[in-house]
């Protein structure tokens, strides 16, 4: 068990709990000013739950304790983002419901299933549509960056590596151009560039769908969607040349996939589907 990781996660949890409690205090004050005792009581209940979000060392083996810390830290990261992003947008009872559901995940015995928790949180947050996706992305990013920056990429669990891959893939997907540069990943993720380079090198060796060459990173999926849009909108030649130099096989495959899609659409049009 890494001492650095344990200390980092414990500090992260404490910090997130106190930030969340500050948000809740503020909401409570507003509720009391509005003489809204129902909301105030609901917030007190939530505050109590947040206070218990730290795994008890005595309940776990050393390795399990780290996993439980990871799960609690991830949940708190999402809860923090949820409050920060939607506290003035959504009705308090709706926020409370989602928060309680997320809290119950670590309380309900799932605390040792880090991957399961991440998936369940994603599903819960997806009920909030686009903002939910943003909360998930930002909550995941902050959790990952804290571990990477304090203890190094090697301290991420397998599931953490998967989450990191997902975060980077969604960053690539959100770009207008067909790739992202190392510098852009570093800036958007909040990770130092030399650390980012190591991460990308490792991730592309584990996940072949992440393509990396000369500080340019992309995915097969991104190249395919980009080619599809480029053909439709008849724009941009410059980026195609870059892709041709860096990822010729994926570019070719994207053209083939798109031609297949177009002939299928053509066929459907003529068959009246």
């Amino acid at each position, binding site marked *: 068990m890494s001492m650095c990781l344990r200390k980092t996660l414990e500090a992260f949890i404490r910090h997130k709990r106190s930030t969340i409690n500050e948000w809740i205090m503020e909401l409570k004050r507003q509720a009391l000013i509005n003489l809204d005792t129902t909301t105030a009581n609901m917030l007190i209940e939530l505050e109590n739950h947040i206070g218990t979000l730290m795994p008890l060392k005595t309940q776990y083996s050393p390795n399990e304790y780290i996993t439980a810390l990871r799960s609690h830290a991830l949940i708190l990261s999402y809860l923090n983002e949820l409050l920060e992003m939607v506290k003035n947008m959504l009705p308090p009872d709706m926020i409370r419901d989602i928060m309680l559901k997320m809290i119950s995940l670590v309380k309900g015995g799932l605390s040792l299933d880090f991957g399961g928790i991440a998936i369940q949180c994603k599903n819960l947050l997806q009920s909030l549509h686009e903002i939910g996706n943003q909360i998930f992305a930002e909550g995941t990013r902050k959790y990952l960056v804290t571990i990477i920056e304090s203890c190094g990429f090697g301290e991420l669990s397998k599931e953490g590596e998967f989450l990191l891959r997902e975060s980077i893939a969604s960053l690539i997907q959100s770009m207008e151009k067909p790739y992202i540069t190392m510098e852009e990943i570093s800036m958007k993720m909040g990770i130092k560039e030399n650390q980012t380079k190591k991460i990308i090198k490792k991730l592309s060796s584990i996940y072949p769908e992440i393509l990396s060459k000369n500080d340019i990173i992309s995915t097969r999926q991104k190249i395919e969607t980009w*080619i599809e849009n480029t*053909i*439709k909108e*008849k724009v941009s030649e410059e980026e*195609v040349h870059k892709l*041709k130099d860096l990822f*010729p*096989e994926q*570019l*070719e*495959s994207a*053209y*083939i996939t*798109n*031609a*297949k899609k*177009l*002939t*299928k*659409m*053509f*066929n459907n*049009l*003529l*068959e009246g589907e």
Partner: protein
Amino acid sequence: MISTENITEIIKKLEKIKERIREESIDWWWLDQGDAALINITKIEYTKKEIKYVKMPKVSIKTAITILLNNLKNVYSLSKGKRIQIMSTINEELNELLELVENIREAHKIIEEFEFFDKILDSTEKGEEEKAELKKIIKGSINWIKEIFHTKPFEWEKRRETFKNIAKKLHKTLIEKPK
């Protein structure tokens, strides 16, 4: 890596599309049963030494598909760099063809509506002068659509609403009972 099966699949689909267009275009009287020259396409000529991209004068849709098919059939034997460039051209032109056929089918439906209005016009109780006026509008609209497709077929996207509105007005005048 390029797979032969993928290219073969695209070729097969295109051959099917060509056949369907041949059948359907028999009804496109206003486009010479599909023989009107509407689209510029690139003929890719392969020699041992080089590949030439020859932009053809406007050809019919059926010819365009044949050219595309020939371009595709030669892709198998080329090196990667050359294949990418050719596949890029094929993608762009295939997309244009698809858009063009979508436009033609949409315009054809509107022309059929105009023809229907023309047919029922004589049996309506309109005065002779009004009938003549409406006939002029119908004929003029059909000619205008023909002209668009024979000159700049992709202009249809900017014009389609105009013709839809004319058809809507004719429908109101000739079919809907006055309230």
